């Protein structure tokens, strides 16, 4: 019997015992549905919740609090550039991205645009390396604000809404994720110890001294100009906001514009025009070569709250934690009678101000240590501080240096280490222990959560295998009955030329077909159940920031696993009946009237 004849015969006869098969197949459907459902749920939670909260090939390390006394191991008490350099040399490590928390108190105000009136709260912030989350920010922005190319045709930029650009006839909406980088700023100082690491105090401000040239990773387009590393330029366009392309010949470089406010108290103002102050040209600058006021999009950031002088700076881009919005909506909006926020997108672009050195909780810093800086929300990240704001590392280091000096600015709170593969993590973690670094509680949580999920998945996989096992027994019974019922048919097949193997394969083939059908229905049921669960979850949870719309991940492997298990157990169940069918004695059966 040829394989095609085999399949043809099975296909023709499958419908004949529909009733029996429907009964026998229920177990397969339930079993494979259970398996596919929980596999997809587990994958979905791992991929869409766990990995987002705790990416798999990353771990956050902090300085070990318990010292290893008397073991002859020197444990560093600090996490600084040297520890980062050591981490980066460990095998499997692809990057080490430091975080630095604010070392002083601050208050924050703003938000009138979205919540109806200004909120004033104690502010905490930290800084993190923008390189760590660029892609993640972009992905979450697309999720919240839609694709970057909304698919509308355009002729000019004006066709694409505010901030949008017309790119080759198609609109490119305004993007924010790319704005999360240190916009730069000037830091006044008295000594080197008042500047961030790698900076030196020259002429009352922190500069990058030339030393052995202006090397380093971001060296392209940077030159040593009058003892200071500055970006070279042709026009203002190649400079950061707040800078201008100044000087002539070899001295031409991006220099930050100095400015002055009419009154130091204007720094607290919300009047954007007043905040731009007046540009103070450096001595010897050609009249009319510099703008009158800080350029659009920047403001005059004064050195302290006591002074009217400062430099033009762009607002610091900050990230918020999605949990913050949830807490706000759940607690603050109700308690304080403020407007609830519909979603993350309304907060993007919102400006606010921070006053470094002031606090509602503890004693304020001295007046000359307080300063006001402007900020702007550019996105959301699970890596952002839950109660506070997260800014680019450089901005945080500048602030810590300003209020607490170089030591504070060079010590990191934690470091996120990425490895090439997930499997490299445990080794990296044990290697890092020698450096005195241990996983942050959050990273430990991640591992526990991942293990928990694994155990739950295994338990439910086992449950579904038990269901499939029971259905296999069911199939054995059904098929034994069918084989007995079809004794004559089988005997006739034998008489007209069927081999023992043909008979066996026919029975197994029917079982396999039943398995495929059961598996397909099962996976479809699982998928449908998944949609239902998603709907129920959506209505129960409301719009929890960061909660995935789809908790399930039906990969081809999940579908395959559901189907394969159904087929496998159908075959196991049909094994004995197939043998019984092959042993049908045609002589006896056919001789009976």
């Amino acid at each position: 019997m040829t394989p095609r004849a085999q399949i043809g015969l099975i296909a023709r006869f499958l419908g004949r015992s529909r009733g029996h098969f429907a009964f026998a197949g229920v177990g397969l459907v339930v079993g494979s549905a259970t398996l596919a459902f929980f596999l997809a749920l587990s994958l979905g939670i791992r991929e869409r919740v766990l990995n987002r909260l705790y990416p798999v090939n990353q771990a956050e390390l902090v300085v070990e609090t318990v010292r290893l006394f008397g073991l002859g191991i020197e444990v560093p008490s600090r996490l600084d550039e040297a520890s980062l350099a050591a981490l980066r040399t460990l095998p499997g490590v692809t990057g080490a991205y430091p975080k630095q928390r604010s070392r002083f108190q601050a208050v924050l105000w703003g938000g009138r645009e979205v919540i109806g009136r200004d909120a004033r709260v104690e502010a905490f912030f930290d800084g993190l390396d923008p390189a760590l989350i660029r892609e993640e920010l972009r992905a979450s922005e697309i999720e919240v604000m839609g694709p970057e190319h909304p698919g509308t045709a355009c002729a000019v930029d004006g066709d694409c809404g505010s901030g949008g650009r017309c790119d080759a006839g198609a609109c490119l909406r305004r993007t924010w994720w790319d704005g999360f980088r240190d916009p730069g700023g000037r830091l006044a100082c008295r000594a080197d110890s008042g500047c961030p690491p790698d900076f030196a105090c020259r002429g009352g401000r922190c500069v990058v001294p030339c030393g052995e040239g202006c090397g380093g990773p971001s060296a392209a387009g940077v030159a040593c100009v009058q003892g200071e590393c500055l970006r070279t330029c042709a026009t203002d366009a190649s400079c950061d906001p707040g800078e201008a392309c100044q000087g002539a010949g070899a001295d031409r470089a991006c220099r930050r514009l100095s400015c002055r406010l009419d009154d130091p108290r204007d720094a607290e103002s919300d009047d954007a025009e007043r905040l731009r102050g007046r540009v103070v040209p450096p001595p010897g600058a050609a009249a009319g070569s510099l703008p009158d006021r800080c350029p659009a999009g920047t403001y005059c950031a004064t050195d302290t709250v006591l002074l009217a002088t400062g430099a033009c700076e762009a607002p610091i881009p900050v990230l918020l934690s999605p949990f913050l919005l949830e807490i706000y909506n759940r607690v603050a909006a109700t308690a304080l009678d403020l407007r609830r926020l519909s979603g993350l997108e309304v907060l993007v672009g919102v400006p606010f101000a921070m006053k470094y050195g002031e606090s509602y909780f503890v004693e304020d810093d001295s007046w000359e240590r307080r300063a006001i800086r402007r900020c702007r929300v550019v996105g959301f990240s699970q890596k952002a501080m839950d109660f506070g704001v997260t800014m680019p590392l450089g901005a945080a280091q500048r602030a810590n240096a300003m209020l607490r000096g170089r030591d504070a600015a060079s010590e990191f709170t934690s470091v996120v280490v990425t490895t090439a593969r997930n499997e490299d993590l445990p080794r990296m973690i044990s290697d890092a222990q020698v450096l005195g670094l241990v996983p942050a509680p959050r990273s430990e949580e991640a591992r526990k959560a991942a293990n928990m999920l694994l155990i739950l998945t295994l338990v439910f996989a086992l449950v579904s295998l038990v269901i499939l096992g029971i259905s296999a027994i069911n199939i054995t019974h059904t098929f034994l009955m069918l084989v007995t019922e079809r004794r004559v048919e089988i005997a006739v097949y034998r008489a007209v030329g069927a081999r023992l193997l043909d008979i066996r394969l026919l029975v197994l083939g029917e079982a396999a077909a039943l398995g495929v059908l059961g598996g397909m229905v099962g996976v479809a049921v699982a998928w449908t159940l998944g949609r239902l669960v998603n709907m129920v979850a959506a209505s129960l949870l409301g719009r929890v920031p960061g909660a995935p719309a789809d908790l399930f991940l039906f990969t081809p492997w999940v579908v395959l696993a559901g189907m394969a298990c159904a087929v496998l157990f159908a075959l196991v169940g049909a094994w004995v009946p197939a043998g019984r069918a092959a042993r049908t004695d045609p002589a006896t059966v056919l001789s009976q009237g």
Partner: protein
Amino acid sequence: MIRVEHLVKTYPGQAAEAEDGRLPSALRDVSLSVARGEFLAVVGRSGSGKTTLLNVVGGLDRAWTGRVEVAGQDLARLPDRDLSLLRNRTLGFVFQAFHLLPHLTILENVTLPAWFGTSDRDRGEAEGRAREALERVGLGNRASDRPTRLSAGERQRVAVARALLNRPAILLCDEPTGNLDASTGAAVLDIFLELNRRDGTTLVIATHEPRVSEAAGRRIVLEAGRMVEG
């Protein structure tokens, strides 16, 4: 075409019950040979071993001793695969109880042997041969009916058509007219006679009807598993 030597067939339990006066064996030392194109009638009373003999010769029963050769092949040595092929290509069976499959149409019943052949192409061409075989037994117009709608005589003719599908050299018929009345039985017998005369098909028909055995070219008589005549 068929050669049987010292064939002994004992059903399980038979030997043990031999002392109670029952038969010790269903076939006891049977030897015979059938030439190509011969029409042999196997006669004997009920229980004499006719069916058993046909089952052995047809390769449906493999538990026996002795030597059986069919179309030049030693059945005892054939593996299941080759024996099945022999049943498919060389042998045709007609049973007293017809054994048509009720869930198939007449045409599908007749085409059945082609499903178990060794080539897909042959199966594609089988329908034509099936219609031909149905014409031959006079049922060309009933191809799409179900067997349940046919009379007993018609059913047996369909069974004959099924046996003829692969144009077997040997036709083994176990009381083919046993369930038919005289006139329909005669019609079936006519078909057999024509097959034997025109196509040279070797016919072995087990029967206890004189009408059939008289039509045969030769007859052997079984009695309690022994050949007493032939």
